[in-house]
């Protein structure tokens, strides 16, 4: 286990134009622990997840993931972090197999063995050769989680992972989260389903209008 915390937020602020989406948020998540991120719509949850993933960078303050600061060591952070976002990051014109195959090759994994196994794992084994454009929202979500699982991240950032899923899909998603945790991955879970989120995490961070507040 690493000596560094999984996540260290140091006075993190993010401004979009004149509006501060996050204001001086500080928080430390110990390695191996999982965090529930709560707050109303527009409270800054998605912004914070994007900052941790290095999709964007703080206007002020630092984010450190397992000892690596996101701006200066972005390449190392990107190999350790995976984001499940509202956007699926998928190419609609490619098949599910091609989408995962390309990612596997970019990660240096053998696609011939990893991709079929991953498609089976997320319940898309029989649909691998269909274009993503033909997929339902729930199937896209499954494929998006397959992308995340393929990466085997040390920190998994999940933004509303239960949205668009049917009850069976939600139960499967919970299973994936527990599998990640069992493998030592720290999960940061942003969801409005607080009761469900509390059963999956040990820590909680509540945001209100971009500021950290007590839940």
């Amino acid at each position, binding site marked *: 286990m690493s000596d560094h915390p999984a996540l260290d937020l140091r006075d993190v602020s993010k401004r979009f134009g004149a509006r501060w989406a996050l204001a001086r948020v500080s928080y430390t998540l110990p390695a191996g622990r999982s965090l529930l991120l709560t707050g109303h719509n527009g409270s800054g949850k998605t912004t914070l997840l994007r900052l941790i993933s290095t999709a*964007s960078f703080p206007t002020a303050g630092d984010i450190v993931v397992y000892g690596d600061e996101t701006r200066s060591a972005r390449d190392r952070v*990107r190999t350790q972090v995976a984001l499940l*976002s509202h956007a699926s990051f*998928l*190419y609609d014109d490619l098949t599910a197999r091609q989408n995962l195959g390309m990612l596997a090759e*970019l990660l*240096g994994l053998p696609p011939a063995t990893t991709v079929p196994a991953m498609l089976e794992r997320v319940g898309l084994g029989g649909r691998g050769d269909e274009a993503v454009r033909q997929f339902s929202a729930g199937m896209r979500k499954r494929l998006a989680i397959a992308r995340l699982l393929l990466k085997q991240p040390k920190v998994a950032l999940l933004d509303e992972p239960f949205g668009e899923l049917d009850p069976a899909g939600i139960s499967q998603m919970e299973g994936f989260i527990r599998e990640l945790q069992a493998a030592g991955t720290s999960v940061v879970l942003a969801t409005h389903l607080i009761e469900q989120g509390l059963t999956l995490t040990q820590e909680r961070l509540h945001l209100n209008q971009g500021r950290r507040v007590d839940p």
Partner: protein
Amino acid sequence: MTAPIRTPPGLLRSTWLVLRKDWLIEWRTRARLTALIFFALSTLLLFSFAMGPDITMLRVHAPGYLWLAILFASTLSLGESFRVESENQAMVGLVLAPVEPRAIFLGKVAGNTSLLFGLSLVLLPVSVALYDVDLSRNFGMLLLVLLLGCIGISAPGTVYSAISSNARARDVMLPLLLFPVLVPMLLAAVSATKFALVADPQQQLSSWVKLLTAFDLIYLSVGFLLFPRVVEED
């Protein structure tokens, strides 16, 4: 279960993976390719009608019309190339994978160049039919000029297409940003094409080819340096 051994790809391998992905998407959406070809063919046809039946004038202006057809078609192909990246924020997914942004740039330039070069090969026999040009005079050099010109459009086009991909009026913005930058390169491309198609008594073709190569190197170098700043959010 033991984790598979990871050997992440280097810059060249990542470039190839991005290029192969773009080719796959083009192949799966062949209707777009067909639209591109018909757009360029229509442009050539309209210019030939506008010039009338004067065969000498048609031959003289053929290089300019050929490059205008390629240029107009390029705005469609370049815009489309980044539309697939902005859909579902796929570009963000690539960057976070992580793929070196410069590999994305090189892969995209290679993809756009191959598409435009393929298009120009389709346009050549049409130019023979419409403008009565003689391709056999210096065919090898003509192909080289076309390839260099397509790189010259694709390299800055890839950067500007990435910049404008998230803009509301991206279809208007791309040509506005791109065309002024391309003017010097296009002048060289038209001149080089002219000397590859007609007599070149003063041996000017090689000078124009060198100038085209210089433009390509400048565009590629600037794009290579700037592209990470374009795709990385602050």
